[in-house]
């Protein structure tokens, strides 16, 4: 093995040689410009409608990939909606909450029969409830971000993943969701950093590795339930 650094120099020198890179050839400026001003590609027209159309598209696309969408009138109605969903699916009345004040502060007292805890997922937790940073109508996709209030393990370990999404957080396309995140985190050009993990989640886990037959619940959640809070337009 060479000393660290020399492998790097060797590879970069090979690349520069093949590309005939020279100082002042404008390459560095082209790269800096592209990073500073990210350019959007073609955006599918399907997500371009107004708020109502966006929400309708999000619901239709999410249901197409076997996610369940439950409309709830307000955040305060979430605990009851969680209890109702678990009952309807014959699942245990037990939920692990993301340590997000927007979720832990909800009226869980209204559901005395439900076992509620909070924190990262443990291998035995059957059901998780997380927030969602955004919904993307184009493909019925959730965007979730990691952090103190968003343990990533909750999105993957439990058999049932439930996520609260505000209708006002539904965007038409991926680009709009990323732009929102760039605003929250600070864009990379300004020294901002993405959260450790950003998950785009479209439906529950699946595989087609056995004779090309789609089977839900491969390693991640078998069920994805989106609690869509109708909070009106952003």
């Amino acid at each position: 093995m060479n000393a660290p650094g020399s492998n790097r120099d060797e590879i970069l020198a090979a690349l520069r040689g093949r590309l005939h890179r020279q100082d002042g050839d404008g390459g560095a400026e082209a790269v800096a410009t592209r990073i500073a001003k990210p350019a959007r590609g073609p955006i599918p027209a399907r997500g371009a409608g107004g708020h109502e159309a966006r929400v309708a598209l999000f619901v239709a696309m999410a249901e197409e990939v076997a996610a369940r969408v439950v409309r709830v009138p307000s955040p305060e109605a979430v605990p009851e909606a969680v209890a109702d969903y678990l009952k309807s699916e014959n699942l245990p009345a037990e939920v692990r909450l993301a340590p997000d004040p927007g979720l832990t502060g909800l009226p869980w007292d209204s559901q005395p029969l439900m076992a509620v805890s909070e924190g990262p997922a443990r291998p035995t937790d059957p059901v998780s409830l997380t927030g969602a940073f955004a919904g993307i109508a184009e493909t019925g996709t959730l965007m979730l971000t990691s952090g103190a209030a968003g343990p990533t393990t909750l999105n993957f370990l439990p058999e049932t993943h439930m996520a609260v999404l505000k209708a006002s957080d539904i965007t038409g396309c991926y680009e709009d969701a990323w732009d929102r995140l760039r605003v929250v985190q600070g864009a990379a050009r300004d020294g901002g950093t993405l959260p450790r993990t950003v998950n785009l989640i479209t439906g529950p886990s699946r595989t087609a590795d056995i004779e090309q037959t789609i089977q839900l619940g491969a390693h991640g959640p078998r069920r994805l339930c989106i609690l869509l809070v109708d909070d009106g337009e952003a």
Partner: protein
Amino acid sequence: MDTTSPSFKENARKALADPLVARSRGHIKAGFIAKRRKAVDRLPEFEALRDAARDIKNHTLAHLDLYLERYEAQVLAAGGRVHWCPTAEHARQAVLEICRAAGARTVTKGKSMISEEIGLNDFLESQGIVPVETDLGEYIIQLRNEPPSHIIAPAVHLTRTEIEAAFRSHHDHLPAERPLSEPADFVNEAREILRQKFVDADVGITGANFLVAETGSSIIVTNEGNGDLTQCLPKVHIVIASLEKVVPTLDDVNVILRVLARSATGQECSTYTTFSTGPRRPGDADGPEQYHVILLDNGRSNMLGGEFQEALRCIRCGACMNHCPVYHAVGGHAYGWVYPGPIGAVLTPAFIGIEKAAHLPNASSFCGRCEAVCPMRIPLPKMMRHWREREFERHLTPRAARWGLGLWAFFARRPRLYHAATALAGPALRAMAGGRGRLRRLPLAGAWTDHRDFPAPEGRTFHQIWAERQKGRQP
């Protein structure tokens, strides 16, 4: 990974007689092709997205050195490390050092073609570290100790019967009389067994579909969720990726993501697309404490700036093999190395040498379907032709073929003689065929007539018909 590419002809002969290969062909045709068509038809912007995706990669490859430097700086800023590896051996050693430093005994693995390329599993085992593949297809072929036959559906060549046998012999702690026939039985059994492995692993290794220069993120695109459990539970996350995976910005990723899943499985979007940037942050509730990127060259820098550069646009969707009549006929294993199908016929000679892989670019009818469906518009047939030319220049082409090409060239350069010869050859072959119109045997054409009859020319030559048509058009 070891190669059997030099014996492609023998591999293909065996595969043609193998009923398993024939059955997987049915799965591929019924599944991938129809689903891709449907997804493409639903998105009016698809062709424009293909153009944009091609342009993004062309721009990136033209500035690859600069984007990699920018990418590395962002990974470091996020608290991660980048290990530059010129060869497979460098990459294996870098992974080993990280595992040793972490005191790892078991590593879980998400699906990674680079891992296959550098033969990582065998190497780790030889060093006393147990690698556990967690993608269901990869897990099955790991149990069977065989390479993947498809880049996104590694076990597509297997039926439930073979998978049942592998599960029963390896999961012998489970009741022998348990039912194991429906897809759900296999999925649930693997899920239960691998769950504990996810929790116990010291290190998680994933591949990367993309690296983002803007943010220093690595991206995996999966359906099962195994890649995410692999990377969010252990204390160390290792990403193994090759140089050409880098793209400039998140906006560029969005464009390519829109063509990736549709071209691969026909999904609008894969279930999980995960962006990872550095290790766990202060205050984070979970996530790995270390984040390492193994950045592999292994022959790619040599492809830059030459006639094979465009192959570096490949995003490993598998559409070219799904639509390839040769892949359908012989299956993935016949190609004898990591990447099968048309993209394999272009990449394999570049990575292991044309002298070992000369058969692969010749195993094409140049029907052009691969290029027609490639989301990145890679001119695969043109590149296979370049390899054939190199093979010829380096005198690797067999003597009989060189002699035949020389003979053809002699006639082709003398149009009158060529026309006279073809005018004679047609009727001669017709006469040899008797009234059947087909030839069972033909000198020098045994490779054809051993498997099927050679159709005898039925009428006039193309040139004759063309000349008559042109005459008929005259006013």
